[in-house]
Each structure stands twice: as structure tokens, then as C-alpha cells.
């Protein structure tokens, strides 16, 4: 269950060396900053793209940024928030590369209004299996296969992305405390015009309390300064003993977090880092799960079955007593045209679980519900689903496979994950 592999690394520098490398190795996969939770960037041979980190150009009039694929989102923020620009789409961590953002077609709190990361990508250059460099424009088949394609179409070299204008580094946030899943759904619906929304859910709640949450919605303030300084990091210096995080401590944490919020609706004004990247400010936060580590589980259900499905799944989790330290619920907008992008219209739940006895049996149970309801699992977070479970949710998987075969991409680009689910 815990894939470990000794890898040979090629540090991405220039095209000529990469071409030689691709000719010399049997198969490989891109590896950015290593923040995918599962095995999607693991392979015996990896192309490490993070050292490929030059900023190439910025068009101040249009907010168009051209960077190499190893640049971190955090570096973009550091440079451009003070000048009044922000990422159009950002996930809950800024410690990922631009190349990785494209390969996972990441999304964030504004998926319902702005879509996935690919919607801010105008074009990118990538090296294909034969060593040729291709310019890939939005709308082409190679674009649709690559965005969300988990690095399986080639090595992304650089990309042009659109930034959005902001006038303040602060976000006007409204927090809504709900008592059950019905209220949670109503709140999501009521605030669907707010650009950013996400809910932290108490997954140990039982009975009538199932689905109670803190929904946080908001938008950038129009007033305030742009004097953005990334928060300094708190470090977790060592692995917590594995008993530190148990059902009780999760309960206490969730309860404290939930209890601390005022009833009903409340307003706050918060900074970029605490609104978008709450966990990034704790370095090595994964260590609170102890040496055994943790796994993420993220699925999405079609809108029409989301309510019943979440009732069922939250019921199963709560009954198992396996607490998730962090459970994040969000209503997504329309799906895009990319073959393997995760988001569809509906509710998605992301959970962290400490690795322990009985966990994988529980996750198998959850898989069954997701498959039965026509939902899907997020590859970027996944390390364990079977080929059948994976396939059932992604209707374009055969198109992706056929394209990969036709372009001979399957002769060169593989990860442990692509082999596991046979894509």
C-alpha cells in the first residue's frame, strides 16, 4: 500500500539534455515539487522539473505571465501580489509547480466560478516522447489530454498563464456555521455567487448532526494594501507518536474548531495565506499523523445524487470512528473538456486518514458507494484505487488511452499510478 521506489533523477535544465535523456531511458515521469499525495509522480526514472524555474516574461498590461514549468505558485505570489496580481485558480497549497498544476489540472475554492487551472493557461511548450518540442494551445487535443493528464503525455517545459487583478491582499470572508447536511447544502446554494467557497466538515458527527460544517465564502476586498509577505513557517520537527492522533483528539480538534466559530453567520477579514493556504504555514504538517503516515481520499458525486451519497458516506465514516483531521467539502461548477480532469458538477469531499488497521477496508466500502452513484476519484490524491473503480468515473478514459497510444506516449511516460490503473 505504500509504494516506495528508488528513482534515478534527471534534473531538467535544457531541451537538448532532456531529449538525450528521453532517448536513453525506457520510461519516466515528470516530478515537480512532490506534493501529489499518491504515486502519480513515482517511477524508477523521474524528470525533476523543479530546478527548471526561470520566469521568462510578464506582460503588465494583460497580466500574462510566462514561466518555466518548475516555478512554484508561491514564487508567483511573492513576486506579483505586491504588484496587484493573483492566480486565477489556486488549490489549497501554493507549494506546487506550474507544470504540476497543469498535469493535475488543479482547482480551488473558485471552481464554481472560474473552473480548473487549465482555464488560465493560454498555451504551453512540452517535449513529446520523440524529443520534439510542441507548442500546445488551449483547445487542441494535446491540451485536453495534457491538462489533467498526470504527466502521461510528455514533459511540460514552460507555460503562459493569465493572472487576475486584485486591489487588496485581504479577503472579506463570511463564515456560516451549519447544523447538518441539509443546512450545509442550503448554505452552499445561497452563496453560490460568491467567488470563493469551501466547507470544513466534522466527519465524526453522528445521527442528526451528520454534515454539520463551517462554510467559508468570500472575495478579495477592494480596499487595503498589497504589502504581501508570506507567513513565516511553523515547523513540526518530528513525527508525532502514532497514538497522538486518535478518534478522541480528532473529535476534540473538530469540536474546538467548530465551537470557536460563532453561530449562524459571521464576518472576517483575512489575508491570502490564511484564506487560501491554511496548512502551508505549518511545515511538515504530515508528521502529526506519525510515522505510519496518512492517505488522502477525495471523490466527487454528480449533483443530483450528492445529498444522498454524502449522507451515506459520512454515515459510514462516522460509524467506523476513523476520524479525518481535515475534511473539506465543496460544491463544484461545470466540468471542462479535458479528458481526465477531476471536477464535475456536484459535491466533492476530501479527507485525510491516518494509516491504520481497517482503514483500507473502509476506503473500499467508500469506493463502492462512489462507483454506484457515478462519482469519481481524484488521481492526484490517490494511491490505491483499482483500475475498475477508477475507470467507472471517467467517461473519457478510452479517448485518453487511444490518444496516448496513437501518439506513442505510452511507450515512454509511465508512473506507478498509470500502471496501477492501466492508463
Amino acid at each position, binding site marked *: 500500500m505504500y509504494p516506495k521506489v528508488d528513482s534515478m533523477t534527471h534534473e531538467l535544465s535544457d531541451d537538448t539534455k532532456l531529449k538525450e535523456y528521453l532517448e536513453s531511458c525506457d520510461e519516466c515521469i515528470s516530478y515537480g515539487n512532490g506534493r501529489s499525495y499518491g504515486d502519480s509522480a513515482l517511477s524508477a526514472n523521474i524528470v525533476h522539473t523543479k530546478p527548471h*524555474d*526561470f*520566469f*521568462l*516574461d*510578464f506582460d503588465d498590461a494583460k497580466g500574462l505571465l510566462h514561466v518555466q514549468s518548475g516555478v512554484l505558485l508561491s*514564487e508567483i505570489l*511573492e*513576486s506579483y501580489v505586491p*504588484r496587484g496580481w493573483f492566480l486565477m485558480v489556486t488549490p489549497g497549497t501554493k507549494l506546487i509547480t506550474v507544470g504540476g498544476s497543469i498535469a493535475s489540472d488543479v482547482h480551488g475554492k473558485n471552481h464554481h466560478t472560474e473552473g480548473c487551472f487549465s482555464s488560465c493557461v493560454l498555451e504551453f511548450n512540452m517535449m513529446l516522447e520523440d524529443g520534439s518540442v510542441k507548442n500546445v494551445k488551449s483547445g487542441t487535443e494535446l491540451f485536453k489530454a495534457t491538462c489533467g493528464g498526470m504527466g502521461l503525455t510528455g514533459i511540460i517545459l514552460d507555460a503562459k498563464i493569465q493572472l487576475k487583478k486584485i486591489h487588496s491582499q485581504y479577503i472579506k470572508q463570511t463564515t456560516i456555521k451549519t447544523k447538518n447536511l441539509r443546512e450545509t447544502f442550503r448554505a452552499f446554494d445561497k452563496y453560490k455567487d460568491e467567488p470563493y467557497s469551501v466547507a470544513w466538515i466534522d466527519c465524526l458527527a453522528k445521527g442528526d448532526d451528520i454534515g454539520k460544517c463551517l462554510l467559508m465564502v468570500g472575495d478579495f476586498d477592494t480596499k487595503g494594501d498589497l504589502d504581501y509577505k508570506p507567513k513565516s513557517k511553523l515547523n513540526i520537527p518530528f513525527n508525532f507518536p502514532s497514538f497522538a492522533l486518535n478518534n478522541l483528539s480528532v473529535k476534540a480538534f473538530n469540536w474546538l474548531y467548530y465551537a470557536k466559530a460563532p453561530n449562524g453567520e459571521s464576518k472576517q477579514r483575512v489575508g491570502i495565506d490564511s484564506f487560501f493556504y491554511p496548512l502551508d504555514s505549518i511545515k511538515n504538517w504530515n508528521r502529526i499523523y506519525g510515522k505510519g503516515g496518512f492517505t488522502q481520499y477525495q471523490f466527487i458525486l454528480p449533483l443530483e445524487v450528492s445529498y444522498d451519497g454524502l449522507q451515506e458516506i459520512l454515515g459510514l465514516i462516522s460509524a467506523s470512528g476513523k476520524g479525518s483531521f481535515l475534511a473539506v467539502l465543496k460544491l463544484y461548477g461545470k466540468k471542462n473538456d479535458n479528458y481526465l480532469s477531476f471536477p464535475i458538477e456536484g459535491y466533492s469531499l476530501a479527507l485525510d486518514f491516518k494509516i491504520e488497521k481497517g482503514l483500507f477496508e473502509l476506503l473500499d466500502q467508500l469506493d463502492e458507494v462512489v462507483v454506484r452513484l457515478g462519482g469519481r476519484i481524484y488521481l492526484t490524491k490517490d494511491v490505491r484505487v483499482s483500475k475498475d473503480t477508477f475507470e467507472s468515473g471517467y467517461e473519457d478514459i478510452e479517448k485518453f488511452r487511444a490518444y496516448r497510444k496513437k501518439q506513442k506516449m505510452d511507450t515512454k511516460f509511465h508512473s506507478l499510478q498509470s500502471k496501477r490503473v492501466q492508463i
Partner: protein
Amino acid sequence: MSYVLIVGAKSDIAKEVARTYAKNGYNLYLAARNVTSLEDLAIDIRTRSGVEVHLKELDITEYEIHQDFYDSLEERPLGVVTVSGYMAEQKEAQVEWAKSLNTINVNYTGTVSFLNIVANDFEKERRGFIVGVSSVAGDRGRKANYIYGSAKAGFSAYLGGLRNRLYESGVQVLTVKPGFVNTAMTKELDLPEKLIAQPLEVAEDIFKAQQNGGNVLYTKWIWRYIMFIISHIPEFIFKKMSI
């Protein structure tokens, strides 16, 4: 506007030092041999930070041109960071004099020649900072790399003396002693992962220590203690060891 001059700008540490100073609003002179190869880095830094970046051709081992080079800078720098370093394979350096000599010249002689000029100017102006990147290898000679180590030892002693001399003029001198750093220089070595610093960490440590008026910086910090122990092993034991 204030300029920082980075000498030996092609190294992995220099790249991050340059970015860090630029991020904090300093304009840059980047000096190195075949400096045109740094054009992409200059664009990167201008795009990231909106500061001025000028590339300057400089061979640290061509002593006779150092004064002209320094005089030709459009604006006198506020501070100078020397990152020049060259580590030949020890086994080759001990049998090929040319490699020994180049190691000594890049790490010691050339840098001394250059910093003498800077020091004289800063002393006169009674301002400025000098950051010299030396190495923990200079703290004790070991068979694994004593030619490189002895050049760095000389350089560390030079910086110590310079700091002592310039104290009265209010010029700061910071000696930087990195341990293992993940760079082109150490790529082929098999090193313990926990002791390896990333170039960015080293650069941030340097910037912080320089801004806080530091004297001697070990980076990662644990090297101060490792080297304390290594320096205190009695010679009759040390000579038999392979570390």
C-alpha cells in the same frame, strides 16, 4: 538605488543569493566568466522582482584587471558577495599541479586580490558589507579534500582579519561556511540527506545573517557543532581516520 555585486554568479548558491537580494529590493551586478550565459537568469530576476540587473564579465584569477573592473562599475556597490569556488577532484589535484593551482587561485588568491580593492574603497567610504563564501572544509584539513580545504582555510583567515580591520570603519564582513549543499559541485557525491542544504536555504541564511550584522555563519547551523567536534579530535587519532 543600491547595488549588490555578486562575484562568481554562475554557481547554484549565487543564483539564489541574487534572487534573494533582488526580492528585497536590491539592484544587482552579476559578475562571472562567460557572463552572457547568465542572460536568462538576469531576465528571470528582472521579471520576478523588477530590479536592475547588470551582467559583468570577470575572471577572478586575472588579478591585473580587478581594479579596472571595480572602477568601471556605473555605481559603487553597497555590498559585495563572493561566491567564487572551484573544487577539483582531490585525487587529481594532488597529482596535477595545474588543478591544485587553480583551486588555490579561485578560492583564495583571486578572491583576496579582488576583496582588497573592495575593502580599501569601503574603508574609505566607511560603509558597505562584504560577504565571503568560504567552506566548512577550511576548518580542518582532511585527506578527502585538503587542497580545496586549505585554500578555503586561508580565505576564512583572510576574512577574519578583514573583519577585524574594517570593524572601526563600520564595514561589515561576514564569513559564510556552508556544509554540504545540493549543487553541481556535490552532485556526484553520496552525502547524508539530512545534512544537505538546498541553495535557497543557504541564500536565505546568508541574507538574514548579513542584514543582522553577523560575523561567521555556518549553514546549515548544525555544521557549527559538527565542525567544533571535528576540530577538537586529537591529531594522533584524527590522522588515522577517514572522514
